[in-house]
């Protein structure tokens, strides 16, 4: 049995090591800097189809992450999907005629909203709505259209 001083020092080191491991997980491995409720403003956008967009998906502008999706709901009056974006308060000067489109990162990656800046001198504020939107490109629908086009072409070429 070791002396109690050695034991106490080793236990102290164990506790410090455990905390250090947790701090490493918190700072190096995970994103501690997610926006909290207070430093964001909300902007809504209406889409015909949002594809695979999810809550917490990123909102990007010029490829830079400026916020995330806060809420997604469906408006059954106008038959459109309503997406609420939570944009970091830092970005105050986004022209209010910017266009929101839903893109996919890579071929199979996650979907995100991209804001393309417009030319207006007025800026988005809390509760604004994006006027110009472009729905998600649904891969199945594109493939379907392509197949129909292809079969139309073969039909017309065989008629000639």
């Amino acid at each position, binding site marked *: 049995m070791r002396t109690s001083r050695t034991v106490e020092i080793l236990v102290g080191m164990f506790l410090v090591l*455990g905390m250090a*491991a947790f701090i490493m997980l918190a700072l190096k*491995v995970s*994103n501690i800097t997610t926006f909290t409720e207070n430093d964001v403003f909300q902007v809504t956008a209406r889409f015909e189809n949002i594809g695979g967009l999810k809550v917490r998906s990123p909102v990007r502008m010029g490829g830079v992450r400026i916020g995330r999706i806060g809420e997604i709901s469906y408006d059954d009056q106008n038959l459109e999907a309503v997406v609420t974006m939570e944009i970091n308060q830092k970005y105050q000067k986004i022209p209010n005629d910017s266009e929101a489109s839903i893109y996919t990162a890579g071929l199979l990656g996650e979907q995100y909203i991209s804001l393309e800046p417009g030319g207006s001198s007025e800026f988005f504020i809390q509760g604004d709505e994006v006027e110009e939107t472009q729905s998600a490109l649904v891969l199945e629908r594109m493939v379907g259209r392509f197949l129909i086009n292809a079969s139309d072409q073969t039909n017309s070429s065989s008629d000639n």
Partner: protein
Amino acid sequence: MLDSLQRLGQAGLDRFQRLGQSVLFLITVVARMMAIVRYPSLLIQELYSVGVLSLALISISGLTVGMVLALQMYTTLVNFGAEQMLGPVVALSLVRELGPVLTALLFSGRAGSALTAEIGLMKTTDQLSVMEMMAVDPIRRVVVPRFLAGIISMPLLATIFSAAGIMGSYLVGVGMLGVDDGAFWSLMRDKVSLSEDVLNGLYKSILFGVAAVWIAVYEGYQAVPTTEGVSRATTRTVVHSAFAVLGLDFVLTAIMFGDY
């Protein structure tokens, strides 16, 4: 026919009785937990034997699991040209699942069995009854420090396991397989969330710690005071802890991550 029915009923009643006893035992232990402020040195002694001595096993297992995971995942991910995703894949599986579960299994094998054998042998050699005779409560003096030491050590060990695993996968992924250093960490940070992944893993490990150490001290305290009884109790500790941890893991995972 009736005899076999009787045996089945007896076995069932026996199980339920043990379950009830163990819950009562847990309540007694928790009710007397405050006694630890009178003997903090006992807690430190137990933290040493339960936590510090498990450290080598846990950190080396973590490191090797991380290294193997990196090798295995790389061969699959490289087929999709997604080898940059190695960091997030390894980090998520370690933090959410493998860290808490493997640590709990190793912990019950390394520390839980030792606790059961120690308390069981104290009972066999009449040390517990001597304590009672000297008006020292064996639950306050023997069980509570070990129980608390287990609950404190488990989350710390699980965190160390995950951290060691991520270091291991970094060594193999970036050092050996040539994944980009920056992409490894930045994608990991992008995909792993503190509140949802790291903290949920931590809560899991705390609950696993409670389950494993509860089973260990209960089996030790209720062991039949013979050589064979202690050996059986030790075996039961490891087996029951494994079942409890794996079962609990499914339930907790379904609650924490089920809606994705």
